[in-house]
């Protein structure tokens, strides 16, 4: 199932969640031809924001992706506070919540040089190409190599 990125962004922005789009969707927003099935976001860890994040995703019945179906899980501020990174399935598709991004840092560090884009009528922060490059280098998976080549080209053109 293709994730309904538009509705997820509308839900997050509509609930004033402090978040930034990261990962492959951020790459696509910068111009990459990458295709991805899920939306990755980095979110602020203050308690008010955790409440807003839980409220934004709650209507879409989030569950832990890959966890046994009988494993009790309720996405609320408390569970978000107890963890850091969550891979979730919702009725709108898959979304990954990252409290920290390897190679970049926390939400504050992600938004420090994030770009602000207008997406589906919402003003949204998107991880910069420079930060995406650092994250890809830190992740160090084989598929990141292809992304790094594209990021290098996109950064060259942005200069």
């Amino acid at each position, binding site marked *: 199932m*293709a994730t309904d*990125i538009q509705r997820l962004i509308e839900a997050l922005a509509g609930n004033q969640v402090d978040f930034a789009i990261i990962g492959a969707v951020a790459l696509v*927003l910068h111009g990459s031809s990458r295709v991805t099935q899920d939306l990755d976001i980095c979110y602020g860890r203050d308690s008010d924001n955790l409440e807003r994040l839980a409220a934004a995703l709650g209507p879409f019945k989030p569950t832990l992706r890959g966890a046994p179906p009988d494993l009790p899980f309720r996405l609320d501020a408390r569970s978000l506070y107890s963890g850091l990174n969550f891979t979730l399935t919702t009725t709108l598709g898959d979304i990954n919540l990252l409290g920290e991004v390897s190679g970049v840092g926390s939400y504050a560090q992600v938004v420090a040089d994030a770009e602000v884009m207008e*997406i589906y009528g919402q003003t949204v922060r998107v991880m910069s190409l420079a930060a995406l490059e650092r994250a890809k280098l*830190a992740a*160090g998976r084989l598929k990141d190599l292809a992304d*790094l*080549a*594209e990021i290098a080209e996109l950064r*060259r053109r942005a200069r």
Partner: protein
Amino acid sequence: MATMKNGFPPGRNETRSWENRDPKAGGEAAAEDQAAPSLPGQAIERHPRSGEWSWATESLARYASGVDLTQLEERLKLTPTERLERMRRFQLSLEEARPGRGDRHPAAD
């Protein structure tokens, strides 16, 4: 070559170190004072945590990137929303083209 740690290859967030190469084995250069790999048109950056040139940077410098510049140029003409929509349309077309269960090879079940 990735450095083995406790008999296992490095995890996704561990550094592939140049410094751990044995210069005598395979004749590779010692890692100290490595010059920056040459990558045309790009300022090479060190690994964000280790400060070394990463395995990825080395590979990028050695091989053609394979980036489809025509696709990239086409996407750069679009707005961010249009770029997402293009990806979504592509995903939906793939899902529609996916064979139904009756077309699947029994071994796939």
